[in-house]
């Protein structure tokens, strides 16, 4: 079937990749990387450049840098987004990319896709204030989409549901992940 709508997602390439990687599971093994360096106070700068996948080292078109810091209400300099906010950036980026790709595959033209994300957190967790049942991280995340597209509400609901089902960041947040951190004196 020839695509008649274009959300700018190369679905043929994605479907081709799905077929190729079914036959070659080794090439499907990716590794994502970031480096980070402390600046001052709670300010850090992270750089994203290389990753591994399709059996080879890969590089972004250019390095991307992200500043993270704490806001002024924490008596910090606010040189960037709070790290927990970066998590929301990742979730929004992942879910919205999924919506665009699924829409393209289903021949649904998108005019606008806007997301609002909210995450609740009880600061007593990270401050070490003893309070039963309070965790460091989010108590929950709510994502709300406003989508303008040639589709029914049920089709839009299905886009959003399918995008969650196939989202890496949704999975990272909704399911446990083993995290190991090591350090070396230099």
């Amino acid at each position, binding site marked *: 079937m020839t695509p008649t709508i274009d959300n700018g997602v190369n679905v043929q390439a994605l479907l081709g990749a799905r077929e190729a990687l079914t036959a070659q599971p080794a090439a499907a093994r990716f590794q994502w990387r970031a480096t980070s360096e402390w600046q001052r106070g709670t300010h850090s700068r992270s750089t994203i450049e290389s990753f591994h996948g399709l059996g080879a080292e890969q590089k972004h078109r250019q390095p991307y840098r992200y500043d993270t810091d704490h806001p002024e209400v924490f008596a910090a300099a606010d040189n960037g987004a709070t790290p927990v906010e970066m998590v929301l950036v990742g979730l929004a980026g992942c879910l919205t990319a999924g919506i665009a790709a699924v829409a393209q595959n289903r021949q649904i033209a998108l005019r606008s896709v806007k997301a609002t994300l909210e995450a609740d957190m009880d600061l007593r967790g990270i401050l070490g204030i003893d309070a039963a049942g309070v965790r460091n991280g989010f*108590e*929950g995340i709510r994502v709300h989409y406003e989508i303008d597209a040639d589709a029914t509400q*049920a089709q839009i*609901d*299905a886009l959003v*549901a*399918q995008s*969650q*089902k196939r989202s890496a960041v*949704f*999975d990272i*947040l*909704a*399911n*446990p992940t083993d995290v190991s951190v090591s350090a070396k004196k230099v």
Partner: protein
Amino acid sequence: MTDPRVINAVIVGAGHNGLAMSAELARHGVDHVVLERGAVAQRWRAERWDSMRLLTPNWMTRLPGWHYRGDDPHGFMSAAETAAFISSYAAQLAAPVRTHTAVTAVQPDGAAYRVDTSRGTWRTRLLVIASGAYGKPRVPRLAAQLPPGVAQLHAAQYRSPAQLEEGRVLVVGASATGLQLAQEIRRSGRPVTLAAGEHVRLPRLYRGRDIHWWMHEAGLLAQRIEDEEDPARARRLPSPQLAGTPERATLDLQTLRAEGVEVVGRLVGVRDGQAQFSGSLRNVCALADLKMNRLLDGLDSFAARRGLDAALGPVERFAPTLPAAPPKLMQAFGTAGAFGTVIWATGFSPDLDWLQLPVFHADGSLRHDRGLVAPGVCMLGLPFMRRRQSSFIHGCEDDVRELGALLLAHLRGTPGRRRWGADIQPFSEAMPTSG
């Protein structure tokens, strides 16, 4: 009798599939034997829980030339009634069944197969695997991480709530089995948590008719696997949330929650003596609701096209599954108020350890093309093997007729490897196809 006994066909398993194939081979005059490790319909007799009933109504439960003759066509057979139904079919056929004869190994033997059993050896040209799709309980790897004091059993070992310890029960799996066990155990007075991943929600009755009546009438059950866009996915789909009760009641996550079952997300981890549940519960419920509504839309169009609307109840839509907000993400094992028992309602694989042929994928699943396994070898009864109804009792009729024709062609040396499909190749030059 001296070993090996030589015969044209060996059928492994005297359940409905094996017996129907026996009838088909007999019709064509092929000498054969049906080897059964226990009694006829063994799994229905001894390997399911006490209250289990078929998910298909009695009128639908039929075999070639054999059907339900009772006075409750809309009811659902118990496991014992199903065993009796299959046994009377076997008796009526006078099928050549050797009971209490367990197959221990099948190996290539020139252009034939050698079948070792607990009662001697056979040499056969044709082999029919009818030992069932649900022989080997599947348990997720993380079962090994549960604390030692927690009782664990698979749905295959569950019989009734009476066998369970006091305390909260975690049922893992949201297919028909998981939901039925959760409901029964809750009704016995125990606290129950159900961990639900992706699932298929269906109403028992829709517009006054059984959902399987709809699926049957609309031709959905007869749909062929080759017409599916994603056959692997179609085969992986969990069994729909249904129960066959006298009340013909719908059983879904809403029903369970109303009865006091706590519904949580998929069990995704065990850490520090705690079960961890996925935060994806809302989305898997949304996916199931959307999928159910698309199916009902399709059934409504079918009814309108066929001019059935006047004979049916009004169009219905069911309340969306709204998980309790927020669903629980962690729960301890072992201590007071925590899980004392875990029941794995996580499905089955066929038990084919005895099949010593190079016919398995790397993950241990059987390689086959719509039931054709190797020259002269076929499987029966896998979910969506040839049609959506392949794993249903009534579904064996079409499969047995079509696969039986291919077996006969093989036996008679009808030329054409082509008939076996592109995926089916002889194992080696030592064992050529008949072509």
